[in-house]
């Protein structure tokens, strides 16, 4: 089981990530993505910092943060299993796969948890070898409960 451990959020280290992005045109989304890559989530404290560094309103930053499905404001769990629930994967049993994984792990899809989360995803471009899933960034084709279990 591969665990991704992220460094602890801190305003000082966040500044170091944001400074180099000052020359990026339209930096807010890129900045939030960079923070999430580093810490596994975007700490709510980051809103004010991003607003200040790039000279935009907090409301704008908050708006971007809440719009995109990828961005999260709670710390990332040790493991994230994303299951494609779009049509092509439905046709080869992704609904059953989700049910099986929920049962096997005892967690519901799209709920946040500290250890493991199951998240719905909409297409990994692996639609000829579905059901598709991504476990901590690794794409898995013809996914089954056995293949996805830690």
């Amino acid at each position, binding site marked *: 089981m591969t665990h991704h451990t992220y460094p602890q959020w801190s305003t000082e280290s966040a500044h170091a990530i944001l400074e180099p992005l000052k020359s990026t045109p339209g930096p807010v989304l*890129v900045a939030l993505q960079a923070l999430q890559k580093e810490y596994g989530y975007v700490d709510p404290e980051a809103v004010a910092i991003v607003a200040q560094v790039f000279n935009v309103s907090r409301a704008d930053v908050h708006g*971007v943060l809440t*719009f995109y499905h990828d961005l999260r404001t709670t710390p990332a769990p040790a493991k994230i299993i994303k299951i494609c629930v*779009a049509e*092509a994967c*439905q046709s080869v049993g992704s609904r059953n796969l989700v049910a099986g994984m929920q049962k096997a792990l005892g967690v519901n899809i799209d709920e946040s948890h500290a250890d493991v989360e199951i998240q719905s995803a909409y297409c990994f471009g692996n*639609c000829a070898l579905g059901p598709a899933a991504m476990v901590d960034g690794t794409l898995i*084709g013809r996914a089954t409960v056995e293949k996805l279990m830690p």
Partner: protein
Amino acid sequence: MITIFIPNDSAAVSIGANEVTSLVVTEASKRGIEIEIIRNGTRGALWLETLVEVQTPEGRIAYGPVFAEDVASLFESDFLHGGSHRLALGKTDEIPWLKNQDRVTYARVGIIDPLSLSDYEKHGGLSGLKNALGKTGAEIIQEVTESGLRGRGGAGFPAGIKWRTVLQTQAVQKYICCNADEGDSGTFADRILMEADPFTLIEGMVIAGVAVGATQGFIYLRSEYPSAINQMNRAIEIARANGILGTSILGTSHSFDLEVREGAGSYVCGEETAMLESIEGKRGVIRSKPPLPAIEGLFGKPTVINNVLTLASIPAILHHGAAAYAARGVGRSLGTQIFQLAGNIKRGGIVELAFGVTLDLLINEYGAGTLSGRPIRAVQIGGPLGAYFDSKKFSTSMDYESLVQAGGMLGHGGIVLFDESVNLASQAKFAMEFCAIESCGKCTPCRVGSTRGAETIEKIISGVDVPANTRLLLDLCDVMTDGSLCAMGGLTPLPVKSALTNFPEDFQGKA
């Protein structure tokens, strides 16, 4: 030294290509055989992955689908010299599934080493750009217009006309934006091209830049494609180091540079104006048109927005000429389409053919029916906003106009098969739910209507006042069609109504 090709494509890797590769390395060294492994892209026959190819004096010999447990026996069968084996497929180029295709945009995909510029040039790469550099912008655009190339992202707008508008709009800065958001379920042709032949997309974008006078490009690439993001970034660096990007393209006075912007899990950001908002770092809310992005696009500047496949078709058009491209296809659908066979299908993957082939040829001859072996009940074409067809529509000609006439749309060319276990009322409900999740929120019919739509279909499924709720559903669909700013809300009724029309038996309430 024997050369072996093992795809590095995400789909191939997802079912074991990396394990196969390391076993091949181990087995070869155990036997003291010197090999060189090239991690090519996929040939597109995903049902044969992992497709292992061996270079022999007669050509490349293929074995597939190879799984880890097959590797030792391949060595025992002397596959390194084309030995016979249960998985032997003969010469790759002679496999009918591949041989009968008409690979134009995908000419190099799966054949070359994706990041080798010399391989790229040996297989015709850069010829289109070199031809383009000898022409004026207007001449390049004339060529693109005459080729008949239309947008492959969904709307099918003629590429040349869009480019001309950008050329004719005066501005100090113009942009080329490549839409690599590929959000439609059942589609993966953008991804495969970017992983297997990234320089083709770069070349297409440079040509677009030279044609309209743009010096900066962006590729908006979905976060669900980490390997494609990585591959494009590496290819951009190589292109920059070799004068294909930068301030003096192939030694001329033209300059063009390129940056990848990663998506953030929003389907609606595939709509072009939402994509521009997203590249600008904002919420992916749709812009009203006018102004057209070609006049006021990214950061308010004239912008060409094209799909990956549209831009990746440009080098071939400039290389072989507009006439060769336009000689393919039917009616106003010229050239080739990269069809993607997906879902419950035996032989899924990429089929590039001239427009005008039948749906039946694709799903039954190429696709060989369902993976489950049960009869095909429904086919969804064109992603989540596309129609569900029943078998009466399998004779439809696959081109923009015929599909619309048949009550559907081509979209990005994804074809998803369902066997008889599918329930079309559930699929219709999913279409509404997906719209509710992905709506940008600007229009009430899309934002609220989709949630109401899902609830109404749920009532129909549970048998609550079916006739009244069916009428309500149809009314809702009309309101969404008429009152939505973009195709997210405007076309969600297409899968819903086609399911209802073509599969009424699934909307009768509880059996």
